[in-house]
């Protein structure tokens, strides 16, 4: 699906729009355990990506991913800007222009490790990594967009609710961070879910 600019354009637009549509939900989650700006920040990043849609569609897949990452770094603010920016930029640096399945898995793994390094974190600390890591495991078992992947990331985001935050602003709350879904885990699940459904629909 991602071989031509028009389909890449549609996918980027769909994901950015999903983030914008869920901005209030992300903000509400962040108000519970963070500083309440995750929705606004991610929306600003998504809008920056949408503003650049024409030029993104003309780029190859890796170049488009790098540009998306740079837009997120510059526009999102907060810690999620560099974290998501690093994820997309690393994907772009790692992927060849027409990736085979193994290339995609390897690029996802590199991007996950880059986010871990940037955030000095690892899965289990109530962060976006608690969705990205299980997503990679699910993809390794069944390397394609699938309802199974969507279910896995939704489940993984839910699994952050009983976790105690050990990184980011939420970690200041200690025990009080327990009982709330991590906003970064939710935004990661949202994007993976949206990408997966869009790829599935276009494959039909």
């Amino acid at each position: 699906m991602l071989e031509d600019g028009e389909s890449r354009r549609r996918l980027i637009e769909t994901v950015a729009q999903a983030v914008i549509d869920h901005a209030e939900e992300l903000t509400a989650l962040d108000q519970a355990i963070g500083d309440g700006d995750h929705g606004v920040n991610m929306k600003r990043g998504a809008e920056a990506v949408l503003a650049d849609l024409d030029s993104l569609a003309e780029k190859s897949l890796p170049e488009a991913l790098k540009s998306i990452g740079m837009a997120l770094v510059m526009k999102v603010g907060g810690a999620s800007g560099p974290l998501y920016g690093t994820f997309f930029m690393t994907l772009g640096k790692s992927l060849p222009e027409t990736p085979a399945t193994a290339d995609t898995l390897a690029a996802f793994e590199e991007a996950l490790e880059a986010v871990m390094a940037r955030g000095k974190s690892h899965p289990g600390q109530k962060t976006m990594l608690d969705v990205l890591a299980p997503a990679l495991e699910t993809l390794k078992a069944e390397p394609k967009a699938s309802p199974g992947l969507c279910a896995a990331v939704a489940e993984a985001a839910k699994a952050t609710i009983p976790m105690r935050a050990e990184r980011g602003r939420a970690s200041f709350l200690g025990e009080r961070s327990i009982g709330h879904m991590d906003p970064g885990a939710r935004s990661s699940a949202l994007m993976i879910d949206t990408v997966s459904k869009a790829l599935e629909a276009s494959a039909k």
Partner: protein
Amino acid sequence: MSEDKVGIVIVSHSPEVARGTADMVRQMVGDEVPLAWCGGDPDGGLGTSVETILGAIDQAWTNAGVAILVDLGGAETNSEMAVEMQPDERRGRIAICNAPIVEGAVIAATEASGGAPLEVVRRTAEELSPA
């Protein structure tokens, strides 16, 4: 260029905190240290922005390098990102100090004004006492 002094960059979520910290540095240490501050997200709310941190590093840059003082998590992550985006010849001459922003900035600037190299500026800020 051996007379260059280490520059100081202050990165806070709040522009008022950043500017206030810079005012304290200026009053206590004087004008001989290159100093820049930034704060606020790209829309002007509380937060930090890689773009403005890049600008502040440029503003405070000297060949002796730059010491960055940050407040909370996102300020550090965004500063690290900004450092990585620097050209190779600059990257090794920027230190993000693990110190409280106000006290660290004043101590770092005091040390820098005496001509101390970057590593000493950083260590002194982190220990919060003059070398």
